[in-house]
């Protein structure tokens, strides 16, 4: 059974200026043990999508359509009020959250309460869902997890400021693992870390996933971070998924002008040194997104149709899905 199936999810925010079209027509699926890299620039809606799945959205978020099916059950629709906002309290989703779907938040620096010991915060996360569990038992669980992620046992009684950045991120991972969740959503899990620590955390995440076979969504702006970790990749731009598929297909035989430009904009440590190409213009405002294809003002291949019509989801022979009127031509490199 598919672990997670997000169908045509559309999420808008109501703001003073009107509507922010943050997430539109998003379709992703995830099987047990799979990792999806959700990649995009700041403000493209990737974090909103992640938070939408776990229903951690602010009051002004309106779900305009779509479903989030988790283990065969639509978990989103029952949580909605008539106008599409989330109900303030729904027991079922609270049961699910952290127990089945947990998160690793961006900036572990601030994700912990500074005046409470790290161990106590993790114990709290355990006992919220297991009210009858004795403290000793919960502590033993924390000790196991610390062993797993490689923090010495005696650090359980430290405060967050006594941890280094890498340790805090590890503790955050431990906290996400307390109930053996089926799905972990990791929002920029290594962004604030130095490369050596980043590699360690990614190795750790890979190792844990191999052991427990949970599904995982890694949200990041850095394509190179997920290149060796994820099985699938979804490239997001201005609220829409531009290309989605197996990571090798999307990397090697990209069928979307934005994906191509994004991958081409990275200098690499390996291979010949060549001039990287930049994308002209700026990411658009999501309050007034461009008509038609949202990438058309910056796309070097843009034609008349791109300005007027929203492109279809094109399934390529290689298997990935591209949101582009000319996906085949772009993939074959014959686009003028």
């Amino acid at each position, binding site marked *: 059974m598919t672990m997670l199936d997000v169908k045509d999810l559309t999420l808008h925010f109501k703001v003073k200026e009107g509507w922010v079209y943050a997430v539109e027509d998003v379709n992703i699926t995830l099987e047990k043990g799979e990792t999806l890299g959700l990649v995009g620039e700041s403000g493209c809606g990737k974090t909103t999508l992640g938070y939408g799945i776990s229903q951690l959205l602010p009051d002004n978020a309106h779900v305009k359509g779509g479903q989030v099916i988790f283990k065969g059950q639509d978990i989103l629709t029952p949580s909605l009020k008539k106008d599409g906002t989330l109900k303030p309290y729904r027991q079922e989703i609270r049961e699910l959250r952290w127990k089945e779907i947990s998160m690793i938040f961006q900036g572990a620096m601030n994700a912990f309460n500074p005046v409470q010991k790290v161990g106590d915060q993790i114990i709290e996360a355990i006992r919220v869902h297991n009210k009858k569990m004795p403290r000793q038992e919960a502590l033993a669980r924390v000790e196991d997890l610390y062993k797993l992620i*490689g923090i010495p046992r005696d650090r359980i009684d430290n405060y967050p400021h006594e941890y280094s950045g890498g340790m805090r991120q590890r503790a955050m991972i431990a906290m996400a693992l307390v109930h053996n969740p089926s799905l972990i959503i990791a929002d920029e899990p290594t962004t604030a870390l130095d*490369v050596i620590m980043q*590699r360690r955390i990614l190795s750790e995440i890979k190792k844990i996933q191999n052991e427990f076979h949970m599904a995982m969504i890694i949200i990041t702006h850095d394509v*190179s971070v997920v290149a*060796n970790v994820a099985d699938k990749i979804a490239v997001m731009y201005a609220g829409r998924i531009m290309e989605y598929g197996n990571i090798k297909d999307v*990397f090697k035989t990209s069928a979307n002008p934005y994906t191509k430009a994004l991958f081409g*904009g990275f200098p*690499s440590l390996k291979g010949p*040194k060549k001039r990287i190409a*930049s994308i002209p213009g700026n990411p658009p405002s999501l309050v007034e997104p461009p008509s038609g294809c949202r990438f058309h003002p910056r796309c070097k291949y843009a034609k008349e149709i791109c300005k007027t019509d929203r492109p279809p989801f094109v399934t390529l022979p290689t298997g990935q899905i591209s949101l582009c009127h000319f996906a085949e031509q772009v993939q074959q490199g014959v686009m003028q």
Partner: protein
Amino acid sequence: MINEPILNIRNLKKYYEIKQGLLAFRAEPIYVKAVDDVTFNINKGEIYGLVGESGCGKTTTGRCISRLEDPTEGSILFQDIDIAKIPKKELRGFRKNVQMIFQDPYESLNPRFTVFQAVADPLTVHARNQSAEERLDAVVKALNDAGLKNPQDLLERFPHELSGGQRQRVAIARALVVDPKFIVADEPVSMLDISIRAGVMNLMLDIKEKFKIAYLFVTHDVAIARYMSDNMGVMYLGNMVESAETDELINNATHPYTRALLAAVPIPDPDYEWVDVPIKGDIPSPINLPTGCRFHPRCVWAKEICKEKSPETIEVAEGHFVKCHFAEDMYGNEAPLPISEFKEQPPGEGAGDDEN
């Protein structure tokens, strides 16, 4: 002209004294050795990439060179003048030649200054006798050089009306407007979105070519340093552990730390197989530095001598300097010395844990 240095940095040191509690006034002062004995040259019209992890002293080095910090010891020779020893009052003349670009254009531009005011501001100090027309021309030219289209339309805008990329270009224009010979750029692209980043990097390369301006390019991202620089240096805990011509350094990385750093850099290629990162433990506290070689607690090749004696800087090939006792054995070898006790050791248990 080739390889003629514009800056000679010799034995640069910057120590910060740590203020302790009231009762500690009799105790020996404690120092953080942010930059400790760093020596390198920056050539005319070239980009020098300075890389390292957070806290290694790369930013402090840049700030000493632009005299935003006063060096504790050492010399920085710029056109036969020792920058490190210029009295504060006489810095103005020097600042005309050395400009700075900062990491965050959201913070480095005054929110109450229009683009014109921001870019013209250095001119009010360095070109006081300019007429209004001359000043306007200079500002428009600088904005043009910084790759901003239709600069006339931008002059009256405020920073919050600009995009991130435009803002950084305005910061670059502000540096260019006084016609500097040297620019210190501290992580100038790390706050920018990927689609914008390449444009700003290419702009900086074009400016280098066009105006023959030399840069110190400080970054934590080795791939960006490779793309930008002609020569580069790697810092670890205040020391320059390795420096060489950029391709030589990437292809023949010799110092154990450089090797670890390069091995850890993510490669945007799903077929790339991760190699082991030869390093253990965490970065030690800069207050309580390890004895001998500062890298020895984390080095998988460390020997007895590394604990006792700080290594000399050895020239292993022309212009390739390595601060390691075994630099000559390590140079050009895949895994030269037996890896003594290398195992995947989780941080926090390493000898260099940050609690000591």
